[in-house]
């Protein structure tokens, strides 16, 4: 095979290759125009005083943006801390909840599976703006249903959105509506686990819980891994919910200052494109760092044995 490949290409092969490149070209152009070049450009911008409002030429500003980041900027520090506080709940939730829901939907004892699957997935297609306004009402201090339910069982509900201790649980409650996708993917993966494995384990005397942790989870670990990566990326691009809630003063301002909200303020409200680029790179480096860590951890817990390699 390899020897054959090395031989000079036939005219047909060459022609095929030309067609292939033509068909590939939209992506190549898009990747350059909206991917690679902007990434490099944003790094260059981060060293300049670029402002869209001023007509003046862009000038190198002697590392002032980066100096500001490392010496003066306390907002970004708080924003990153807020992200960690949020992620501490969001990350486990984004794996455990879809996993449990998928296990429930995969249960042989569940009647009406497809209806439940549809209903649990459905909020995923709800526009984020609608979800936010509905949940803001649900989380209302007096008339919100969550606090009213709590009152029924004798608990005085908190001020979810203004109290800095409750804002992260509240944001995560709002985020629950987006877990349908992960749930479906995990469900499909669970359905793909060979039944022989379960039968063998049953013969060996493993109960349902043992089977779930010793067979289901390892067998679907590639899918868990994939969803973990997507969740981490999602956390570093978290913007809409805190932005919309703080814009109309519904939510605690300090606690909802996330890196992307800060980037938006600097770049698009204050027009400081240079500093916005610095912030973009901070987020980029953090996101990449987290992603690489997860990739490195993969070999300890992600099981690829079932996969056929081509």
């Amino acid at each position, binding site marked *: 095979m390899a020897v054959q490949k090395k031989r000079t290409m036939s005219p047909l*092969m060459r022609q*095929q*290759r030309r*067609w*292939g*490149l*033509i*068909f*590939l070209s*939209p*992506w190549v152009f*898009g*990747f350059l125009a*909206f*991917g690679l070049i*902007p*990434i490099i450009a944003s790094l260059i*911008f981060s060293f300049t005083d670029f402002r869209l409002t001023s007509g003046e030429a862009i000038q190198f500003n002697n590392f002032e943006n980066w100096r500001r980041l490392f010496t003066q900027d306390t907002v970004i520090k708080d924003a990153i801390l807020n992200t960690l506080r949020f992620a501490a709940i969001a990350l486990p939730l984004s794996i455990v909840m879809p996993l449990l829901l998928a296990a*429930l*939907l995969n*249960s042989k*004892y*569940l009647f009406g599976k497809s209806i439940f699957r549809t*209903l*649990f*997935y*459905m*909020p995923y*297609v*709800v*526009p*984020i*703006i609608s979800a936010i*306004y*509905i949940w803001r009402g*649900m989380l209302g201090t007096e*008339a919100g*249903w969550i606090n009213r339910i709590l009152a029924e069982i004798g608990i005085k509900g908190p001020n979810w959105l203004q109290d800095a201790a409750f804002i992260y649980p509240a944001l995560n409650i709002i985020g629950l509506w987006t877990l349908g*996708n*992960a749930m*479906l*993917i995990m469900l499909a*993966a669970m359905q*793909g686990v060979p039944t022989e494995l379960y039968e063998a384990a049953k013969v060996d005397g493993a109960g349902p819980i043992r089977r779930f942790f010793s067979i289901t989870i390892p067998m679907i670990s590639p899918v868990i891994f*994939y*969803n973990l*990566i997507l969740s981490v*990326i999602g956390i570093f*691009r978290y913007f809409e919910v805190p932005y*919309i809630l703080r*814009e*109309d003063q519904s939510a605690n301002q300090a606690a909802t200052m996330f890196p992307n909200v800060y*980037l938006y303020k600097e770049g*698009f409200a204050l027009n400081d*494109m240079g500093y916005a*680029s610095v*912030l973009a*790179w901070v*987020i*980029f480096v953090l996101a990449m760092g987290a992603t690489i860590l997860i990739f490195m951890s993969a070999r300890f817990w992600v099981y690829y044995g079932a996969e056929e390699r081509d």
Partner: protein
Amino acid sequence: MTTQPLELTTTKARSHVNTVPAYFRQLKYMGAVGSVTLFALILVSAYLMPFAYGALTSLKTREQIVTSANGPILPVDHATFEWEGQQLQLYRVTLPDGEERELARLPESTLRMQYMLDPENPTAPPIELEIRRPQLQPVWKLNPHWENFKLVWEGQQGMVRLPRLMLNTILIAVFGVIGTVMSSLVVAYAFARFPLPFKRTIFLVLIGTIILPRQVTLVPTYALFVALGWKGTWLPLIVPHFFANAYNVFLFRQYFMTIPRELDEAAMIDGANPLQILIRVIIPQSFPVIMAVSLFHFVYAWNDYFEPLLYLQGKPELQPISIGIQNYNYIYDQQQGLLQASVLITLLVPVALFFMMQRFFMQGVVVTGVDK
């Protein structure tokens, strides 16, 4: 030697003993089905409860929302009884003889002393009751305000009307669907069928763009669109989708791999060039995946908030619904009923689309998620 009779007795014994455990097992199974399904039902109700909140709130007036804060969750008014040109409020009271009646409270009542009129016999002298006013149980009358939806649909002075916002959204979404389907289709075709230099590496880079945070390209892309004079137009929301997207390319490629190559080859022998093969062989075979990609993009465009926020600020008449509805939030600040009505109208389109086309959605999600 003794196998024959032994077997006979065991089968007989089994059939006799098994009738009871089989019955029990069935009962146990049904019990498990019942409890698991009930649990799922409770869970899904909790999960979808906010829709009920939104729907009920959208039917309320401001006064009914205040009532609801402590009273019933339904859109209700205090029932009244008209007497001599006055609207008297009805209360459910227990009379000293233990009888429960709905009575109308007369205005001469005080905090401690209630003078109540019997609506069934209003000419009779008022009934005197020694009950503190806060202890009176109001009689509620269901009164949903469906006209909230009409009010929102018609809008108010100085705001862009919902039909216009919806039309904007549909147009942006449809152009984007055309772009992303066409471009992702040809790119996926290239990956699925043609020899390319460094094909694996290029494919990995493509998939890698999924985990690229958008912020890192945001500022220069924005600057580019501003420089092109595209800010304040739909172009930044549409044009980038004409350059393929990793998810969609992946979805198409996976699907194309399942189409037998023999079909291509047959067409090739008939003299079709690769573009003709794509149009005549591949695309007609790919209806489900084209539907899935179109639906994903339509819902994405309908729900996208960030890009319209960047590029269409200050252009209310061009905004899609996601941004437009935010202005309703400020205008309807004190009228949650109207806001929730607008919220429900906004989410109706993607949710209805999902219910109608769920097969395509589900398949698409599963392919992108599991195959990776």
